[in-house]
């Protein structure tokens, strides 16, 4: 095949990490993490459907420090994937595709994710 000896594109570690590439792979990473977390959601709903004992048993794991860490990671990932997903939907409309606007929207996504995650955690903490 004529394609065999063609030069390869540089490998990933050659490139300097940029906001755009980091956000892109984080979108995919959070997507995979959230897909796995969807199975935890299924477990939580099944526990509720199976009565107070099963629910109380599961809740000891959720309220434990590792459960809270996973829950926090889920909330953070959900907000990131949500905000960056809206960015993708705007791109799909053909808007904001130039480099300058892409960077501005990228920083907005980072700021919004941090603010929403902290705000949700504070409001939920207060209402308990």
């Amino acid at each position, binding site marked *: 095949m*004529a394609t065999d000896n063609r030069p390869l594109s540089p490998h990933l570690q050659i490139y300097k990490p940029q906001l755009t590439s980091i956000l892109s792979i984080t979108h995919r990473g959070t997507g995979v993490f959230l897909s796995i977390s969807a199975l935890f959601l299924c477990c939580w*709903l099944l526990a509720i*459907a199976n009565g107070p004992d099963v629910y109380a048993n599961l809740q000891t794991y959720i309220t434990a420090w590792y459960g809270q860490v996973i829950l926090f990671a889920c909330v953070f990932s959900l907000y990131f994937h949500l905000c960056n997903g809206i960015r993708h939907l705007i791109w799909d409309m053909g808007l904001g595709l130039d480099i300058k606007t892409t960077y501005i929207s990228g920083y907005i996504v980072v700021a919004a994710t941090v603010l929403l995650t902290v705000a949700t955690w504070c*409001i*939920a903490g207060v209402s308990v």
Partner: protein
Amino acid sequence: MSLRTPLHRVRGLGSAKEGTQHWWAQRLTAIALVPLTVWFIYSLVVMTTMEYATVTAWMQSPIVSTLLILFIFSLFYHAQLGMQVVIEDYVDSETLKFGSIILLNFVMLFAGLASVIAVLKVFLGL
């Protein structure tokens, strides 16, 4: 050995004639998930700290169970579509690729359906 270039062999084969449905479904579920996720995140963080009776009372509200089922459907559909693209991008072996996608479909369908039935069971007070 063929003297034709790979580009020449590809030209004329046309498009794959699929993919639009997948792309569109991913966007449609994404749009649906925007308001549903905002509602769900807050509910999740609050509800995981609540007692059993509070959670079941919350789920027995028709609007809550409707939103939950809509959220479950959009979430598992969106997750299946997204994970399929990830598998297609990174799994090289055709056998492993198709095997993983079939397994993914089964797992997501099973977990999604189990979640909906769990919500219905609590909603109906069974």
